[in-house]
């Protein structure tokens, strides 16, 4: 049996493969969503409130934006997790920091999805 550093269990080593796979899958999804998002930003920037609501409230754009937010934040969470793992030692509160960053991204996601929901209604 291989010896792992303190705090890293065998289970966590297995989930590293999952992490890698999800990072790539979300990256590929984001390529398409990003192209869509850039087109949105370029067109929606000149709209007033009523026109922007009408734009976002169409099923295609509402679902597209929701997907963008969810997949984007998920990709960001996976990426920031690795950055923290690389630079913050376990004994300096690595896991707590990862948890806080993920919680913050989760809150941003909830705020976005809730706003989308309210706008569409």
């Amino acid at each position: 049996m291989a010896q792992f550093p303190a705090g890293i269990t065998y289970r966590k080593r297995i989930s590293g493969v999952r992490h890698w796979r999800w990072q790539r899958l979300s990256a590929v999804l984001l390529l398409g969503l990003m192209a869509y998002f850039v087109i949105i930003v370029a067109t929606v920037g000149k709209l007033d409130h009523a026109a922007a609501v009408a734009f976002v409230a169409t099923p295609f754009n509402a679902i597209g934006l929701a997907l963008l937010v969810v997949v984007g934040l998920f990709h960001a969470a996976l990426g920031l997790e690795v950055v923290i793992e690389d630079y913050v030692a376990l004994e300096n509160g690595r896991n707590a920091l990862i948890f806080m960053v993920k919680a913050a991204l989760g809150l941003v996601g909830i705020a976005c999805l809730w706003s989308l929901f309210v706008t569409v209604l």
Partner: protein
Amino acid sequence: MAKPRPLSPHLQVYRPQLTTIMSIGHRASGIVLATGTLVLAAWLIALALGPEAFATVSMIIAHPLGQFVLFGYSFLLFYHASNGVRHLGWDIGRGLAIPSLYRNGYIVLAVTALFTALLWLFVWS
């Protein structure tokens, strides 16, 4: 640690190279782009709150400083995306030789500049 471990040489002894700068740039742009979700969130929240809040956020975005920040975000987004494709190529074992590493590195920089220019030519025209 009980056992003394070998140390890697300090970063500053290396001459900066395209490959190293682009590598750390991918990470840095990823971190900055994560904060960019806050801008998207602000826009969506303002949209949900109503015309007044939306007008405020629109004003901030339209301000030259806001435009500058968005310009920066778009540049980083195009960089992270095109360099991400480069990474996906490496993941399937493509483009890893030193000459191709430099070639696809310069292609990524060119694509980033081109897309950023095209987007803002469209927005400002």
